[in-house]
């Protein structure tokens, strides 16, 4: 009987994985039946499968669904966006108001400067209460 050529390594791998077409499968089966070297190679592939299969699957600690759901819901994103926008606008306005208040103060003399450009309520410059600040902020943003 004529000795067939040894199959290439990738062919043997595909044969082992059951991925060859009918003709190629029959050819390799025929060869391996008569070839100790290729049979040994197939045994090695089988053993490698066992070795790799012995590793445990990593366990997901917790479902990702709650985070995925929270991130993708447009309604939530809209609400979150609005809330964030309002908070940011308030912070900016407060920062601006404080900046305006502190700007004209002469820290050396502890009194109002002559070059003040302040045109807002004077009560604010003389230590207005938080309610006054709020009123001013509201009136200036209307």
């Amino acid at each position, binding site marked *: 009987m004529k000795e067939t050529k040894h199959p290439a390594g990738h062919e043997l*791998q*595909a044969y082992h994985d059951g991925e060859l077409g009918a003709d190629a499968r029959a050819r390799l089966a025929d060869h391996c039946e008569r070839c100790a070297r290729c049979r040994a190679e197939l045994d090695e592939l089988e053993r*490698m499968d066992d070795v790799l*299969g012995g590793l445990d699957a990593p366990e997901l*600690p917790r479902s990702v669904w709650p985070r995925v759901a929270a991130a*993708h819901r447009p309604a939530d994103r809209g609400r979150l966006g609005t809330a964030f926008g309002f908070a940011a606008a308030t912070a900016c306005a407060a920062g601006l108001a404080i900046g305006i208040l502190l700007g004209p103060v002469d820290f050396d003399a502890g009194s109002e400067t002559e070059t003040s450009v302040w045109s807002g309520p004077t009560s604010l410059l003389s230590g207005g209460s938080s309610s006054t600040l709020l009123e001013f902020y509201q009136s200036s943003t209307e």
Partner: protein
Amino acid sequence: MESMTGTTDDQLMVRAADGDETALQMLVERWERPVFAFLVRMLGSREEAEDLCQDTFMRMIKAADRYRPDGKFQSWLFRIAGNLARSRLRRRKILRWLPLGGEHHETPDPGPDPLADLERGQAREQVRAAVSRLPERQREALILKQYHDLSYQEIADAMVTSVGSVQMLLHRAMSALRKDLSRGRSER
């Protein structure tokens, strides 16, 4: 793939694309474990894998209306996860081994047959390490075949390549693993 309720992934995807959140939740809960396991094995980090697992489903949602229900959902989803993993690896620019979690084992005494030792489960860390040292694409093909039972065609779809390339990648991965494990063993 059929679930207990008999709804296929494709059917769920069509419903999810129409805004059905229950269908979306079913898909995520059905696939989050395999996707996470795949990402851990690709990246070697559970923390990063969890982040990218979430990202995978976010991208799935974004692309839901472009998905064609042709029975290749698994490949399609692993393509997304694989792209994210490769992108993360590129960013890290690493070729080093990262611990894949789990317990560390004592180094066993050398026996007469390296693979016999491995089969006894005494050197899982060495196997994990050897897998993580494989070149990226070889590792991806091997993981998809070995741990997710994808066919060559499904792997080719997931990796956007040909069946012939998958065959070569798997052969090279197996050869490299055998060499690596044998060398590691003889060096101890």
